[in-house]
């Protein structure tokens, strides 16, 4: 019996709604069915439209701007390197007398700083090559192997070509930085470090 009573009340409500609609009464939108042709009645703007499609697109445009700005310093540094405004000055350093160096011999020295270990190799009668001998893989010292005619990094068996400094085997990917040499009054001098072309 109480069920019937409630049902009766519900029907009564519906009837009231219908009557209100028929009479053209305006009602709030929080009831169903409502009359307004409005698709956004149920969107609480404060919560649900925080990141809508347009907001998301704005974020993406902003991110593109941030990326654009973030690479500008790299571009500027690269341009500075290319224009040669930041050319380094290297000291002139005597490495060894030619007389004390046989063909196939190597001399270890430090250039340009006292902790930058380097290696001078006499490859022929008038052929000298010098490289900074920190392996380009993990900075182990590279040694000259006269028998194999190549430069060897013992840590991970990296091998460099002594004539070009280019890695021929093992993990290193970049060539050794070449030290520029000058022959003067029977001695070999280091005058600079070549930027390696990787």
């Amino acid at each position, binding site marked *: 019996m109480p069920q019937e009573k409630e049902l009766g009340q519900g029907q009564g409500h519906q009837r009231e709604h219908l009557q209100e609609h028929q009479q053209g009464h305006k009602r709030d939108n929080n009831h169903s069915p409502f009359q307004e042709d409005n698709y956004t009645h149920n969107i609480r703007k404060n919560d649900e439209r925080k990141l809508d499609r*347009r907001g998301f697109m704005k974020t*993406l445009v902003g991110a*593109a701007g941030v*990326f654009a700005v973030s690479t500008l310093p790299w571009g500027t540094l690269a341009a500075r*390197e*290319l224009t040669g405004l930041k050319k380094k000055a290297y000291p002139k350093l005597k490495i060894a007398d030619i007389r004390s160096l046989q063909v196939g011999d190597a001399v270890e020295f430090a250039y340009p700083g006292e902790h930058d270990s380097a290696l001078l190799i006499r490859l022929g009668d008038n052929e000298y090559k010098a490289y900074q001998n920190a392996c380009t893989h993990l900075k182990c010292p590279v040694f000259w192997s006269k028998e194999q005619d190549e430069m060897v990094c013992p840590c991970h068996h990296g091998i460099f070509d002594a004539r070009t400094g280019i890695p021929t085997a093992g993990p290193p990917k970049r060539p050794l930085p070449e030290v520029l040499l000058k022959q003067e009054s029977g001695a070999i001098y280091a005058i600079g470090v070549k930027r390696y072309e*990787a």
Partner: protein
Amino acid sequence: MKRSYLGVLLLCVVLFLNIICTQKAVNAYYFEHYRTVIFYAVCNAMLFPIALWIYQRERDVQ
């Protein structure tokens, strides 16, 4: 209400290109390929106006 997600997709592509360009630029810097660095930096900078244009186009359509 008809929705077009073309702008969102295009902007996602632009952002993807941004990420690639940034990574390539930084990598090229460490390998001392300075021309490549400048190329990618310019690409990255050009992508921003493109993104802005895509956004404005999508907004004005509605």
